């Protein structure tokens, strides 16, 4: 974050032989999580070039991963804004919102916007994100190409606001298509909002890409207990309009069921947005291919970060890797010499009463498996351990050690033989034993239990040993040692804390 700018670094010289250009012109296409982080890091690092950010959405940068929290009601929409337009202006960053890049012209070094204007660049960063996939459901898309009016995507703030606008008066029942992380979050959010919600997932279990079938089954059961039925191994094939205007539509499943719904939310994943890159002749596979400098092998002036990028064969779709890429690229452009070597990812489900953490790829990552499963209590924990290091993990229903396990995973800590197992078991409290005479009961005055016992009263103990005269924490113990009823009883043990807000992310 504190990389010093070194203008002599090769990266800083305008490329393409235009060495007379005083300042590098950097254009960022996209204004999502990766792009915002990238620009913040450029500013923090003192990047000397001129930066233009082009965003399709008309609103200031916001925290996309909190959209489900806005839907659920734990976050006000105004609380997820990341940077105001004024912030960009203050730092000399040109911000063009509500417009779209049509083409990238590598030969001329510019991008053309939908209104026909061209923005020249010496360096281009594609942070175009992902596009929600449309599942093959008949009736989903109308002849004019628009979505069925009862169908909602859930990718942008506008999607979220459109969905909120129909809640809860116009929507008593919802069907969420897709049982991945986003699908479950949206389902819980709708459910917390009072909408009867069902989830349709084509795979055999929910979160099938993140957790094993055993964990997915436990999670599906927890969801059911929370009032959300999950249909796994079922695909929606067709939307059936209600004969009357305003009536529920039917979602036809391939197993014969028809689910009535007032609204349908699509969360069945996304694919990298690569059209611009492909049109510009850059190497594209699933995502825009980049090397360890996050640059296209086709054209080193052009970079890709975030959901649209493919590094070492991987497309991630999560914020932490996108941000690490943003940081590495920004620091490189500010003169630091560092490479991107992939990320460790931690994915967390943000949904009330559902506790899930997924570290790395606990399904596919090779290693020894340490697992504790308690379907009755709705808990399932799995650590994948290789050479003593936790290389992946899935925690469902019990996150009491999530902080510690994540630290060990992130730092690649080499654990002891018993440690992975011990990490999954609850810590046991030592049994209470009578205090031996040589046990220190008053640390402030350095007094043992025996010395207090030798006194006839608390007053005598205070006078002779000065026990209880410091912080006062041992007063009750000392009272009992001399056979006196404590001056004041310890407070009643508190009830487990109730969360004050009705819902939370």
């Amino acid at each position, binding site marked *: *974050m*504190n990389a010093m700018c070194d203008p002599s670094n090769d990266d800083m010289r305008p490329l393409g032989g235009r060495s007379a250009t005083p300042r590098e012109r950097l254009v960022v296409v996209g204004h999502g999580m990766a792009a915002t*982080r990238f620009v913040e890091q450029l500013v*923090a690092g003192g990047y000397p070039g001129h930066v233009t950010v082009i965003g399709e959405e008309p609103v200031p940068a*916001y*925290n996309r*991963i*909190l959209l489900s*929290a806005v839907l659920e009601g*734990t976050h*006000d929409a105004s*609380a*997820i*804004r*990341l*940077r*105001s337009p*004024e*912030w960009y202006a203050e730092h000399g960053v040109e911000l063009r919102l509500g417009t779209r890049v049509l083409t990238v012209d590598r030969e001329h070094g510019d991008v053309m916007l939908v209104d026909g204007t061209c923005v020249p660049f010496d360096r281009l960063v594609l942070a175009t994100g992902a596009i929600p996939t449309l599942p093959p459901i008949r009736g989903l898309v109308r002849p004019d190409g628009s979505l069925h009016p009862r169908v909602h995507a859930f990718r942008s703030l506008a999607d979220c606001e459109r969905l909120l606008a129909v809640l809860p008066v116009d929507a008593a029942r919802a069907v969420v298509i897709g049982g991945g992380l986003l699908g479950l979050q949206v389902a819980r959010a709708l459910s917390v909002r009072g909408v009867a919600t069902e989830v349709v997932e084509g795979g055999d279990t929910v979160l099938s890409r993140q957790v094993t079938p055993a964990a997915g089954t436990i999670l599906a059961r927890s969801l059911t207990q929370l009032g959300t039925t999950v249909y796994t191994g079922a695909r929606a094939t067709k939307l059936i309009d209600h004969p009357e205007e305003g009536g529920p539509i039917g979602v036809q499943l391939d197993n014969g069921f028809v689910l009535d719904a007032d609204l349908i939310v699509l969360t069945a994943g996304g694919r990298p947005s690569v059209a611009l890159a492909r049109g510009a002749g850059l190497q594209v596979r699933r995502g825009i291919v980049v090397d360890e400098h996050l640059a296209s092998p086709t054209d080193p002036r052009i970079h890709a970060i975030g959901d649209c990028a493919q590094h070492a064969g991987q497309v991630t779709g999560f914020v932490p890797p996108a941000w690490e890429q943003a940081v590495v690229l920004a620091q490189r452009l500010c003169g630091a010499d560092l490479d991107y070597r992939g990320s460790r990812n*931690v994915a*967390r489900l943000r949904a009330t009463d559902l506790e899930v953490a997924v570290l790395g790829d606990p399904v596919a990552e090779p290693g020894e498996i340490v697992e504790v499963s308690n379907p009755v209590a709705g808990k399932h924990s799995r650590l994948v351990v290789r050479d003593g290091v936790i290389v992946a993990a899935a925690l469902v229903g019990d*996150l*009491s050690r*999530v*902080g*510690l396990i*994540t*630290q060990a995973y*992130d*730092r*690649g*800590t*080499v*654990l*002891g033989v*018993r*440690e992975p197992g*011990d*990490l999954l078991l609850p*810590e046991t409290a*030592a049994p209470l034993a009578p205090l031996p005479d040589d046990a220190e009961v008053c*640390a*402030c*005055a*350095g007094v043992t239990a025996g010395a207090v016992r030798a006194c006839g009263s608390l007053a005598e103990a205070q006078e002779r040993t*000065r026990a209880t*005269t*410091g*912080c*006062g*924490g041992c007063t009750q113990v000392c009272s009992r040692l001399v056979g006196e009823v404590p001056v*004041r009883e310890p*407070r009643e043990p*508190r009830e487990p*804390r109730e*969360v*004050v*807000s009705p819902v*939370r*992310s």
Partner: protein
Amino acid sequence: MTTKTHCPYCSLQCGMTLANTGAGRRTLEVQPWAEFPVNQGALCRKGWTSGGLTGHRERLTTPLLRDRATGEFRSVGWDDALDVVAGTLAAIREEHGADALAVFGGGGLTNEKSYQLGKFARVALGTSQIDYNGRWCMSSAASAANRAFGVDRGLPFPLADVEQAEVVVLVGSNLAETMPPAARHLDRCRENGGEVVVIDPRRTSTADRADLVVQPVPGTDLALALGVLHLVISGGHVDESYVAERTSGWEAVRDHVAAWWPERVERVTGISVPELHALADLMTSHRRVMVLTARGAEQHAQGSDTVLAWINVCLALGLPGREHAGWGCLTGQGNGQGGREHGQKSDQLPGYRMIDDPAARQHVAGVWGVEADSLPGKGRSAYELLEALGTPEGPKALLVHGSNIVVSAPNATHVAERLEALDLLVVCDLVLSETAAMADVVLPVTQWAEETGTMTNLEGRVILRRQARRAPSGVRSDLDVIAGLAERLGSPVPFSTDPETIFAELGRASSGGKADYAGITYERIETELGVFWPCPTPEHPGTPRLFADAFATSDGRARFLDVEHRGPAEPCDGEFPVHLTTGRVLAQYQSGAQTRRIRELPDGGAFIEMHPLLAARIGVADGMRVTISTRRGELTAPARVATTIRPDTVFVPFHWLGVNRLTHDALDPASRMPEFKVCAARVEAA
């Protein structure tokens, strides 16, 4: 004969009565002083046994001069010793200039000594090179408070206000062990229905009296505060009218914390999302909420930003200025507060005036009777000063008052090398501390019960310690040393040795400054049980509570400052996989120069506290020898296995030589505080 005074150790400055039972008794007897409101007669074992050092057999009673050829010390008379010191200082100044002379002070010195030391450096030596060990104490909180509120007073309210709070959040404070009588206020807060939160990587004995304990990864308190603020905002708990009327800078902070959602905070801090919610819910569901930071949050290379992040939380909730609510710092050293207000800090003049402010220079120079232009400018901060010692551009001579640098400085091996590179090291101390043992000249000075002077406790309350007994023969006060050297160096103005006279001068020098003592006298302190600054006139009642109407900034508004979590300077890696954090134990104080010499205080030496999971990993059990190493040094000590510490963290108390050879010397960019509280370490069976 009895004397009402205060304990020689921490910033609580507990009131105590010293009984000088007369003939033949070498030590003073400590008795309670029930009326003093901060501790109400309570003391910890350090206080009860503090009389043990007067007349201790290791007390120095004669100046010592070291022969550089043999390394031997020999006793010399005071005049000879002062002549040698002054002569050498003058010669070095002649050859290299005044900035070749440096002074290192301490947060345990009285206000009078701190003031004289600052004046001595600027006027008699003419050097800009003066700083003190308070940089290693509360400087991060000081820097944060100055920037956010325009003034730095540890607590902006009396400590007893804690009892009326509904929620008290302690960030990195183990006050039940480091200032035990303070815990009584916490207990009373809980009796009144209040709830206590302790944030600390260790479940300390302070945490034993908490309703909620949060154990973050060392060095991540800042991220935790950002996470709390995120939930304050997302839950709609911002005090919008307060923010609009009493603060500035809110928008940037608000937008920034949108990027610190709970799951991200969990990954960084190791605090699970439900725990974070529990903390935020507690803070947002009550009106009288107090956040008190201490060394655990502050002794980091991002310490001042960490404090600012917690202040931001308090401002968003509208707490500072509200009764029984707000932010405060629990200062550490006995005079950590007063010691930084009167000029022994490299950038300050008396009254908390900044040395680069022309008006401040004019005023203080007037009181001192010198030309403003003659005053040097800003010097190096404590650790940077030590690093420069003996280098071509750095000081060649150092005078040390009230500090045991080689034990308490970070990266201590390096610091010891710098001390050895000096042409002259002079140490004033009671005993032959580890630092005094390296000196060319050691001057034996009085200790607390043998002299009179004022201290300013953690509340900003100025208190008086009266002399309770005569100093051993051959021992003189630091004030005598300063006056004697000033005279020999041909100072343009004389230096008094009478504490009350010096205090009156200090009052005039501080007049009109932020820490204004002008209206305070010894008599008022005694009759009013201490006086809170600012107190500009004899008629002014003093100021127990700040910020009720306005903040001390130019526009009267508190500042939100947008701060970002950078993380520890030395992250853990495969080679050094655990976090090392350091701190104090109840029975010892700071470098232990005093407490390790008190027979009644247990002195078991350093230990390495670790969780059973970590102990099992390296194959050791409680009490077995463990070697801990960092990139800077290593130490072998017994393991103390406890479930109360995070399994990825080890704790070592720093009172013993060797512990600070392990710690990191990365500095906070604003406060110049070293990163004592976290570095990367490795532990293995010895």
